[in-house]
């Protein structure tokens, strides 16, 4: 056993003062550097407004009652990367100007779902998730229907916005990325 360290002869008042002063210095350093660093790290990830709208394509491209995979183009230009990568989504033209835009990721753990035209279903390749044409869960482990994009039509062009979640009754349940 190592001998226990004893506090050498030092004025207790001075000792308290040195402790408090060192503690204060450490706290100021940690705060002044810590707050900006935390923001630097986390805030870009939590930013809401980024890439607000994606250009999906002319409305005329979508045949009624059919599902089509589209590579949508982000509208917001950014400083970097110069080329904004396209975003894949499934578009279902519901007719009379209504659309449903599905996120391609399975709501289980995010594997890309494939639309099978003949079967009229979305299949996930990972754990057997199956969704119907409206995105309802037909089989497998997914906890909720396929996520959807909000959308707007302007001058005959379809745009996709933020992604939101639905409950089992296909009702809005909240922004996915909020």
């Amino acid at each position, binding site marked *: 056993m190592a001998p226990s360290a004893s506090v050498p002869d030092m004025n207790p008042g001075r000792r308290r003062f040195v402790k408090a002063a060192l503690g204060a210095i450490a706290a100021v350093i940690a705060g002044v550097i810590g707050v900006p660093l935390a923001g630097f790290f986390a805030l870009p*990830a939590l930013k809401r407004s980024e890439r607000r709208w994606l250009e999906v394509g002319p409305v005329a491209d979508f045949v009624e009652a059919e599902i089509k995979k589209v590579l949508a183009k982000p509208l917001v230009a950014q400083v970097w990367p110069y080329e904004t990568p396209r975003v894949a989504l499934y578009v279902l033209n519901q007719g009379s100007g209504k659309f449903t835009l599905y996120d391609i990721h399975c709501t289980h753990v*995010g*594997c890309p779902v*494939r639309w099978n035209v003949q079967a009229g*279903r979305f299949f*996930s390749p990972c*754990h*057997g998730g199956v969704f119907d044409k409206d995105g309802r869960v037909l089989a497998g*482990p997914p906890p909720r229907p396929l996520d959807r994009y909000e959308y707007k039509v302007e001058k005959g062009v379809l745009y996709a916005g933020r992604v939101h979640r639905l409950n089992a009754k296909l009702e809005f349940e909240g922004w996915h990325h909020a």
Partner: protein
Amino acid sequence: MAPRLTRVLDWLEARLGTRQQVTKFLYRRLPVGTTWWHTLGSAALFLIVLQTVTGFFLAFYYVPSPEHAYDSLVYIQKEIPFGTFVRGLHYWGASLVVSVVFLHLLRVFFMGAYKYPRELSWVVGVLLFLVVMLFGFTGYLLPWDQKAYWATVVGTHIAGTAPLVGDYLWRILQGGVEVGPRTLGRFYAAHVLILPAILYGLSLVHLSMVIYQGIGPTPRGPLSRIRNEDYARLYEESKGRGETFFEHLLRDGVVAFLLFLALVWMAATWRVPMEEVADPTDTQYVPRPEWYFYFLFELLWKFPGGWIPVATFYIPLGAVLVLLFLPFFDRTTGRSPLKRPVATGIATVALAIMAALTYQGASAPAPPREGVAARQEAKALPPELAEGQAVYDAQGCSACHVLMGAGSAAGPDLTRVGARRAVAWLKRFMKDPNAVKPGSEMPPYAGLPEEELNALARYLAALK
């Protein structure tokens, strides 16, 4: 010793004064029963240092941005002399580190070496194990090929299923709402700067602890059951009869060397798997994790719907907490695995489950890509069956069923379904699975045209 070397050492001693510590360190006595199993820690350290060195060199050419990451790796492999070999060392070395670190953990567990007075060595060791797994997870993304990208999408989604904070965790891990340039930047910084700092910091603590407390001996004879108050006496006694660390160092060296040879062989002869460049818009890709995460990926099968967080959060978190605090709730005196049947039993069951899940993950057939034949047919089918097979392929049945080794194992294997079921039953079942077999997960195919349903049922019934 050569006189010149002696002079150099004397010169150093006059300035550093470390000779005595070094001598004490090298010639300290170890307890009886320090075996080949006791080399796993130093083997892990050796492999980690090797990973660090190959990592330094890979960083010379690797570029952590989605536009260039993949090409920079192709460049390393195609243009840089020894590029394939150096990357191979790092790639296969990662699997070796995970394996050896895990074996080291098992050695310490089964020899009861986490008990008094080494509880904190164990806690730090578990943290090191987690850091190593994080190295694996973050490093996996860096090549930015399809499997890297999609494994990370699944990984961050899994983090996103955490209760309450899931959504924030998901975004903070990814650096946004998708796996993109910020994700790659984060994972890169973690992999090459933050995690190494933590790893070496914790390793230093871990090592100074083993030097201070001495290595945990094989729990045999008087050491198979130790009361805390007897520990110091028994350990000293055992050390009195044991060999020196310098002698044991030869075992460490031999094991490190054998691992090194194995790694060099792997890097020189095995191809590092590299897929197409990551494509976030590909909806045909089948994500798979690295083998040491198979158990988690397979565990997801068992907990559908609202139970998902059990597999993605509660079980992993519970397992980590149990591991971390193991020394504080297992305070029995038994050190030999036979003298503490409860701990040994639980661990064996857990290991068996992990092994089974890993095997399941390793042997799982992958669903075929669209447009690629679902299976290799041994012989051409007669036309009335070929029709049914076409329906099987078109309807995406292989998304949930395995047929002759191809498909996904969500539902039953249909390779020999005809031996179990007749045409009429199959037809009724596909129309309304739940009515025929209550609780069936299969979605109904009542909307399928009658003739297609007939053809499909005939085809399936012929599979014997």
